[in-house]
């Protein structure tokens, strides 16, 4: 399709917002999205999760995973989508879907629970997905030296480490700008 329509958004892009439970993913998406975040559900099937233990689910066809997402219309013909990763890490089958074609990921981190970042970091590094770590500045959270955090996370030097306030639109937007700049630097 070209630009023949009157409302012809013809290109779209996607950024993944990842992080541990309760770290502020939905808040972050909601802060910059032009719509109230929506929820899409995926049904886990045999084909999509061949090794998942479904014995606890009464009916495997109704085992679902939910993802929040938001939208930003950047121009009349370009839309950016922000997808929050599912809260439960056993739903890895959705992560492939999320990262395919993505610009990159903002990995939200809480300095009190840095270990929640390790699995997403491994996943993004394995898939070659550009990402940055955004420390969500929770009220009352102790501030640490960046070098100590990099050390604790074993964060590669080239991966940006920033601080944000996921409640603030300007701050969330700045994370997205930094991520796209980082992705550009990694794109030939």
């Amino acid at each position, binding site marked *: 399709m070209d630009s023949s329509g009157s409302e012809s958004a013809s*290109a779209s892009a996607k950024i993944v917002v990842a992080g541990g439970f309760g770290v502020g993913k939905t808040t972050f998406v909601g802060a910059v999205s032009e719509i109230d975040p929506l929820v899409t559900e995926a049904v886990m099937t045999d084909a999509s999760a061949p090794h998942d233990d479904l014995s606890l689910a009464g009916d495997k066809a109704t085992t679902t995973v939910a993802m929040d997402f938001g939208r930003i219309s*950047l121009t009349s013909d370009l*839309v950016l989508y922000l997808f929050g990763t599912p809260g439960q890490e056993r739903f890895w089958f959705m992560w492939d879907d999320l990262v*395919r074609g993505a*610009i990159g990921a903002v990995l939200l981190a809480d300095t009190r629970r840095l270990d929640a970042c390790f699995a997403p970091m491994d996943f993004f590094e394995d898939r070659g997905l550009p990402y940055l770590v955004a420390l969500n500045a929770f009220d009352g959270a102790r501030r640490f030296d960046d070098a100590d955090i990099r050390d604790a996370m074993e964060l590669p030097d080239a991966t940006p480490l920033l601080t944000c306030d996921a409640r603030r639109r300007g701050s969330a937007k700045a994370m997205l700008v930094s991520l796209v700049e980082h992705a550009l630097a990694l794109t030939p």
Partner: protein
Amino acid sequence: MSAPGSRPARVRPYAITGGRTRTRVALALETLVHTDGAAELRTLSGERRTICELCLRPISVAEVSARAALPLGVVRVLLDDMAGAGLVVLHGATADRPDRALLERVLDGLQRL
């Protein structure tokens, strides 16, 4: 979000697609779908009609799923069928990674927000 076990009884999701779970073309979450006009709407019913109505303006696969309250996989199969039948047009089919031109457009757009 309610727990899976507590949701009201409904049709098993893939009954709508005749049991199919695969699509011929890769439909990314952010792939945009559009329909040119309302001409076909009268001939459609059920989920296909709902989807066509949503696609009167360009809308992503994920948004169709959310707004039609249908699971993502079901929406993908239906959209694949509907695109094959000429009911909807898919655009912005995504490569593995965005190229520099797209990244620069996104960066420019974000900086203007």
